[in-house]
């Protein structure tokens, strides 16, 4: 194909973006239907421990804030809690 005029790529772009949105919107609704048909069921609740409101955040200078963030996010996902509901107070970096 030779060098095209600018109207052709513009038309392609508009159509392609429309198709991408169409495909992904269909996928959004497909996911919603799946989540509706197979909802999450709570596993038997483990004994809850109260968060310690007085605990301080990790202040160890050897632990970068990104590590604290990543561990907090991973714990939140694992425990099914918002990161605001608990605090990571101590991380022991490996030797």
């Amino acid at each position, binding site marked *: *194909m*030779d*060098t*095209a*005029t*600018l*109207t*052709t*790529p*513009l*038309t*392609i*772009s508009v*159509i*392609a*973006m429309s*198709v*991408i*949105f169409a*495909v*992904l*919107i*269909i*996928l*959004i609704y*497909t*996911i*919603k239907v*799946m*989540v509706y048909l*197979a*909802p*999450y*069921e709570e596993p038997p609740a483990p004994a809850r421990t109260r968060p310690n409101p007085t605990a301080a955040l990790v202040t160890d200078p050897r632990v970068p*804030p*990104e590590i604290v*963030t*990543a561990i*907090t*996010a991973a714990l*939140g*996902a694992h425990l*099914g*809690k*918002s*990161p*605001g509901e608990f605090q990571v107070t101590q991380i022991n970096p490996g030797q």
Partner: protein
Amino acid sequence: MELSFGDALAKILGTTGFTGLTSGHGVMLVVSCVLLYLAIGKKFEPLLLLPIGFGCLLANLPFSMMASTNEGGLLYFFYQGVKYEVLPPLIFLGVGALTDFGPLLANPKMLALGAAAQIGVYTTLIGAVFLGFNLKEASAIGIIGGADGPTSIFIASKLAPHLLAPIAVAAYSYMSLVPLIQPPIMRWLTTPEERKIKMEQLKPISQTVKILFPIVATIVCCLMLPGVTPLLGMLMLGNLFRESGVTARLHETSETHLINIVTILLALAVGSSMTADSFLRLETLKIILLGLIAFAMATAGGVIFGKVMCKVSGGKINPLIGSAGVSAVPMAARVSQKVGSEEDPSNFLLMHAMGPNVAGVIGSAVAAGIFISLFGDVGGASPHAQSAFEAVAHIVSLP
């Protein structure tokens, strides 16, 4: 056969690489050393830039027979995996095995951010045509905006194999520069108040949905865009290995050994295509410029759509997660987290940004599928359907 000392010496000297060394080889050896420096010294995508740089080095040693075009050479055979589009889908298999679609399934609206970020692909397509590339070449260059290395290589090898080397290098170089390219654009397009928005905790998703998603997504997307099947099919198969819970060995192999082996083969093959003939051209500079535009526009597209979703949702969505729609998993999500936490250290956006991030992988694969539908060799429709399409095209009369 008898050889005098002088003849033997002359023959050996005549076969050394020095006799075949050209200025082009010299420049490409410098380029390969720059790539190796970026990988080792600066740690820019080292898993890819190191083997690409070394493949480039090998390919530019005269008489080594290591260029992708040297039939019978070692890297020629590695390159067949790129040429016949075997290696990029295998990378996607590993990516699927590594990817948790949970954050996306918990908030499927994030798929729209993955779609919006593909605007980078199409603005670059327009820019590439403006700079004199034909539509197939422009499509291959535009897909750099998807920030997805295997997809870029897949499309380049299909639509513009002569541009594979600069496209792959631009894609991987800019992917490694995501933490530098994205934050200024994100800060420029958002207000401090928007960056401080805290998002609600994601709802948990049942294992049944996690298992069904790769199967259903494959059926839906691949029926609509058959060209995307090698990439998306492998991505979803890898994810099914992960989520099904019955293929632990296949999952482990896909996410570790297989993806590592294929990465070595793919990166060496790409490096072997970086010869002076294919790389030292004005087009390479244009592609590098267009690649930067692609990444910038993709980031801007995601953030702007994130702002729209923020308004529509009544301020429940932090627009910063839109930038993660560019794919580049998980680096783009980490950038969203970093920029958000700069404004408010107690704001945790990482898991929220993983939704658009994996949506970006699907979005860029869909964008690739559209290019293949338009310019590739996908099987035709039935005669009845074909005549219907022709009738529609006649009515719409696209230019």
